[in-house]
C-alpha cells in the first residue's frame, strides 16, 4: 500500500497506456465488425463463416497467439493490437449481425410501408433496436481486450502488465499487487458499466 501511494503516478501512467491501447484495438475492431456485421446480417453463409472463425480464434491461448505473430510482425504494440483485434472482431461481428437480424419483421415491414428507404430502415429502425445486443458484444470484447493487453506487456506493448512483469522479475510484491489489482478493477468496472448501459438500452427498446 505504501508503495502504491508513493508510486501512484507510475500506476496511473500504466493504467492510461492500458486504456489507450485497449480502446485503439476496440475502435479498429468495431469499425471492421460494423461493416462485416451488416453484411453477415443479410447473408447466412457470411454469418456462419464468422461464427466458425470466431470460435477457432477464441480458442488459441493468448500468449501463444502473441508468440506466433512475433516471426511475422515482431514485438510491440502492432503485434498486441493485431491479437486484440482478432480476439474481439468476431464477437462483435456476431452480435452486430444477430442484433440486426433480431429486429421484428412486422416493425421492418411497417417502416418500409411508411416509405422509408433501405438506409433509413437500417439507421432509424434496425440499428436502434439492435443496440442492446451490440453493447453486450462490446462488453465481452472490451473485457477480452483488457485481459489480452495484460499479457501483451510481455512483448513490450506497455500497460498494467508491465508492472506485474517488473514485480515478478524483481520479486517485488507491491508492484505485482498494484498492477494485478488495477487490471482486475479496470475489467470489472468496464464490465459493470457496459452491463448497466445494456440493461438501460434493453428497457428502452422494449418499452
Amino acid at each position: 500500500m505504501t508503495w502504491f501511494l508513493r508510486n501512484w503516478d507510475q500506476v496511473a501512467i500504466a493504467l492510461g497506456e492500458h486504456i489507450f491501447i485497449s480502446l485503439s484495438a476496440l475502435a479498429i475492431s468495431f469499425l471492421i465488425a460494423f461493416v462485416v456485421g451488416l453484411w453477415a446480417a443479410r447473408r447466412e453463409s457470411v454469418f456462419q463463416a464468422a461464427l466458425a472463425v470466431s470460435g477457432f480464434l477464441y480458442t488459441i491461448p493468448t500468449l501463444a497467439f502473441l508468440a506466433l505473430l512475433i516471426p511475422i510482425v515482431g514485438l510491440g504494440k502492432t503485434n498486441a493490437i493485431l491479437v486484440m483485434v482478432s480476439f474481439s472482431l468476431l464477437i462483435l461481428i456476431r452480435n452486430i449481425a444477430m442484433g440486426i437480424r433480431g429486429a421484428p419483421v412486422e416493425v421492418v415491414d411497417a417502416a418500409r410501408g411508411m416509405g422509408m428507404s433501405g438506409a433509413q430502415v437500417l439507421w432509424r429502425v434496425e440499428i436502434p433496436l439492435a443496440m442492446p445486443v451490440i453493447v453486450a458484444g462490446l462488453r465481452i470484447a472490451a473485457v477480452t481486450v483488457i485481459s489480452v493487453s495484460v499479457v501483451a506487456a510481455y512483448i513490450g506493448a506497455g500497460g498494467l502488465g508491465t508492472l506485474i512483469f517488473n514485480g515478478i522479475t524483481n520479486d517485488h510484491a507491491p508492484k505485482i499487487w498494484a498492477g494485478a489489482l488495477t487490471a482486475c478493477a479496470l475489467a470489472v468496472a468496464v464490465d459493470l458499466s457496459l452491463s448497466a448501459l445494456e440493461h438501460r438500452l434493453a428497457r428502452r427498446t422494449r418499452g
Partner: protein
Amino acid sequence: MTLLLEAWQYIVDHPARFGQALFTHVTLSLAALLTASLIAIPLGVWLADRDRGALLAINVANIGRTLPSLAVLALVMPIMGTGFVPSWFALTLLALPPILINTYTAVREVDADAVDAARGMGMGPAQIIGRIKLPLALPVVFAGVRTAAVQVVSGAVLAAYIGGGGLGDFITAGIAMMAVPQLLVGAIPATLLSLGTDFLFGRIQRWLTPRGIETEAAT
C-alpha cells in the same frame, strides 16, 4: 518454413524436455479442471435450491469471470510463492465461474413437473438430484466444463511466469532470447492442445446430450 523445421529439430533434439513440459501442462490443466468441477458442480446444485445466498454467489462468479487470467496468476504468487501448487490453485480459481454458473442455471431450469413427478413416485431429495436433476442438467453443466477446460489450458501457458512449468516455458524463454524456433516449440503445441481440448470436450458434450433433448450450450 525453415523456422518450423528448426522448431521440429528442437523437439527431436530435446525429447525429454519437451515431453516433460507437455506432461506438466496436461497434468496442471487436468488437476485444476478436476478440482474446480468437484467444487463447482455440487455447489451449483446446492445453490440452485436457494434464493438468497445464490444471487450473491452467482454475482461473484460473474465478476470472477471478467478478471484477466494473468492478473489472477500474478496475485497468487506473492501469497503462495511459485511452482506447481500455486499455479494449480490460480487455474482452479479461473475454472470455477463457468462451471458454477452453468450448473446453477441448468439445475434451476430443470422442468418442475419432472421433479414433482419424481417426488410423487416417492423419491427422496438425494434421488431427485442424482436421478432427475443432474442427468437433465448434464449437457449444460458439461458446456461449462468445456469452457473452463479451454480457459485452463490457455491459462496454463501463463503459469510459466510463476514457475508452474508447461509449454509456456518455451515461449517465455524464446521471447527472452529472441529464439523464434524455440518460441514456436511452445506456441504451436499449446495452440493445438487448446483446439484439441475444445474439440474433444465438444464431442463428449454431444454424446452426453440425450436424444430428444435440445440444448443451447450456454457459454
